[in-house]
């Protein structure tokens, strides 16, 4: 994590650039989008569809299950979807299956205004254009911290101390929250905490997993220590359920997605005492490390490989327009931490911006990371429930990953 990179990002986020629009409306070709469903992506998809002129086809399929259909929908020839909106973890599946095309020629022709910051380059070729950043950061209740007389925690150790005080003083029984649902969410918490401990997932440059070490054990121990201050049902709480617990006023401190924090601070779903005191802070560090125990994410768009050049050009132009400064207005400005020129951060975005400044690691973009994530999600709960030791859980994870990686041909 270089100083150069973070300053570059910060300056682009702060400076209003010159707005240059792609050629809109597009007059020929087809746009068919598949992507996740949240306000920021809905805004992008709507603007892209608007850009498609008469005599063209435009459609968008935005769903939380997008990852289950995008590879299949782009494998045919011609592909059903001309573009998939993805994040840094899910682009890997598209690259592994070789269903998206390099964008360099299209950028040369239609996208000279796209800043380098937005280009996702893999092995020298631009494979996606990012438009927003996301990260999990601390969300806290200012009134509760004031009541116990504690500053905003900066480390997980301070969070544990604060949680103990809140419980002791009888303010809340289970003051911590977190998306610890067994499966993807719990695995993501492990990834965050393990990176915060300075851990490496693999032996350098190989798909050979290496998490059964001191950092791994400390990571599991910290997750367990935190879980003891959570609602006893924590293993079934995903981001939605955790947000509901927050809005019900049952939680005072939690690690939550930047893209989901805005909802907690609006007037819907909770009492004024809760939403007025909901504040966002930088991500936490752990065990004396300087790298936050969190991961950076980007969301971006791709262009399918198995489509005609005409459709690819249309898709590229429409999406380039939809993620240009033309997107930003009063309504869309607060929806995300946009990587687009002219973006002005709102207070709710402070956490994610701090995460980029603090050198938070991006979620690993490796062809076999998805297999490790699944293995983590399946095996951590046994340890948290006290059924086995941390070392046993870690060795189970390694064994499960190794079996899967052998089957997929990554390991012999």
């Amino acid at each position, binding site marked *: 994590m270089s100083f150069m990179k973070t300053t570059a990002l910060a300056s682009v986020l702060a400076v209003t650039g010159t707005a240059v629009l792609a050629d809109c409306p597009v007059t020929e070709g087809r746009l068919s989008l598949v992507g996740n469903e949240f306000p920021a992506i809905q805004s992008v998809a709507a603007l892209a569809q608007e850009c498609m002129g008469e005599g063209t086809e435009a459609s968008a399929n935005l769903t939380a299950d997008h990852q289950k259909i995008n590879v299949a929908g782009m494998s045919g020839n011609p592909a059903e979807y001309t573009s998939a909106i993805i994040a840094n973890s899910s682009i890997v599946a598209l690259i592994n299956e070789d269903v998206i095309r390099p964008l360099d020629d299209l950028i040369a022709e239609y996208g000279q205004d796209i800043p380098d910051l937005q280009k996702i380059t893999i092995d020298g070729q631009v494979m996606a254009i990012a438009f927003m950043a996301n990260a999990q950061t601390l969300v806290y209740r200012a009134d509760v911290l004031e009541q116990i007389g504690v500053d905003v925690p900066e480390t997980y150790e301070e969070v544990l101390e604060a949680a103990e005080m809140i419980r002791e003083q009888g303010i809340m029984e289970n003051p911590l929250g977190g998306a610890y649902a067994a499966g993807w969410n719990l695995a993501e918490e492990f990834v965050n905490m393990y990176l915060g401990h300075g851990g490496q997932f693999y032996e350098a440059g190989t798909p050979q997993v290496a998490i059964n070490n001191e950092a791994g054990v400390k990571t599991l121990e910290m997750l367990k220590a935190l879980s003891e201050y959570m609602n*006893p*049902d924590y293993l079934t709480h995903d981001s939605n359920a955790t947000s509901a617990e927050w809005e019900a006023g049952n939680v005072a401190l939690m690690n939550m997605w930047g893209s989901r924090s805005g909802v907690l601070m609006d007037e819907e779903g909770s009492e004024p005492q809760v939403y007025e005191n909901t504040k966002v802070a930088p991500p936490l560090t752990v065990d004396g490390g300087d790298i936050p125990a969190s991961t950076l994410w980007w969301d971006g768009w791709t262009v399918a490989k198995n489509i005609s050049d005409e459709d690819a050009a249309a898709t590229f132009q429409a999406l380039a327009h939809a993620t240009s400064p033309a997107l930003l207005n009063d309504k869309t400005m607060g929806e995300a931490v946009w990587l687009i020129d002219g973006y002005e951060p709102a207070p709710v975005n402070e956490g994610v911006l701090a995460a980029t400044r603090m050198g938070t690691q991006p979620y690993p973009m490796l062809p076999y990371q998805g297999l490790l994530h699944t293995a983590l999600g399946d095996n951590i709960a046994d340890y948290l429930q006290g059924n086995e030791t941390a070392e046993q859980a870690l060795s189970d994870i390694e064994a499960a990953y190794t079996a899967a990686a052998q089957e*997929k041909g990554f390991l012999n």
Partner: protein
Amino acid sequence: MKHKSFFWFVLPSSIAMLLFIFFPILSVLLQSVFTEHEQVIKEVRNCGPFGCQTTTSIDQEATAALREAEPLGRFVGLGVYFDRGHLALSEVAQLWRESAGLGAFFDRLLNLPFYKAIAFTLTYTFVVTPLTIVLGFVIAVAVNSAARAIRGPLIFVSLLPFIITPLVGSLVLFWMLDARGIIGSAMQVLADDPDLSVKASTPLMWTMLMVYGVWHSAPFAFIVYYAGLQTVNQDTLEAAMVDGASRWERIRYVVIPHLLPITTFIALIQLMDNFRVFEPIVSFSAQAHATSLSWAIYNDLSGETRQLSSAAATSFLTIIGVAILLSPVIVRTYRDFTRK
């Protein structure tokens, strides 16, 4: 029936079975003995909004050449069946050598994903199936002896759990059982334990999944038994009454023997259904406590990297499991058939 007319009579259904049952199973079998090619990994430099990193990626050109040479993938035989994610032969052998006693062996065996899944699947099957049959029978007898005027509404209400989509039905129950839900809170008061949580305890979660299973499938047993009750010979029943048989004796010696073939049918269907238990585990978010074979298939396919061969192998093991489970009933039916 002449052989020729028999042939033409069964031809349409044979073709349908071939197309929709036999070929799909064959394709699953094929999928399970082939896996992906060895991946050619190359080192690449990735750049994005958060800076540049040296990392690895799949070499597409090399992979395309491999795919061209062997379109089905790498033949591994039963390799996937025997790996740690499935039957885990070498791991089980190692546990057997290392474990002090049988208890320790089984304890550690349940740490392996396949055996963990099969433990819950079998427990679920053998608890839920008999309870479903008994409860279905009791409801059928009760409804059958109710006044004619209220039978219609009674049947409708009794069938409701079966009509509701499993995913929705179990979600409703899930929220009622939440520590802040109506049943969850009631249990805390009754047990006088404010920390009691169904979702946090493995035995309670297993119990809840089985309660749900019985609740959901008892109406099926009920409606089949209810239909069967309409065919009970009234003369025999009256004769039994004249002989002074009590209500229980009439049920025990007239009704139950009459319904025995129906019971075999319900048991067959329920064994198959329960062995494939899936929806409640997803809607109860129970994967931390209970997994089943069907859930394992779903888990393989829903990760960011899909494990098709692993899912196919588990599917085939499920088919074998169902076949083993049903074999006693089928053997019995066959014997009955040939005796006649």
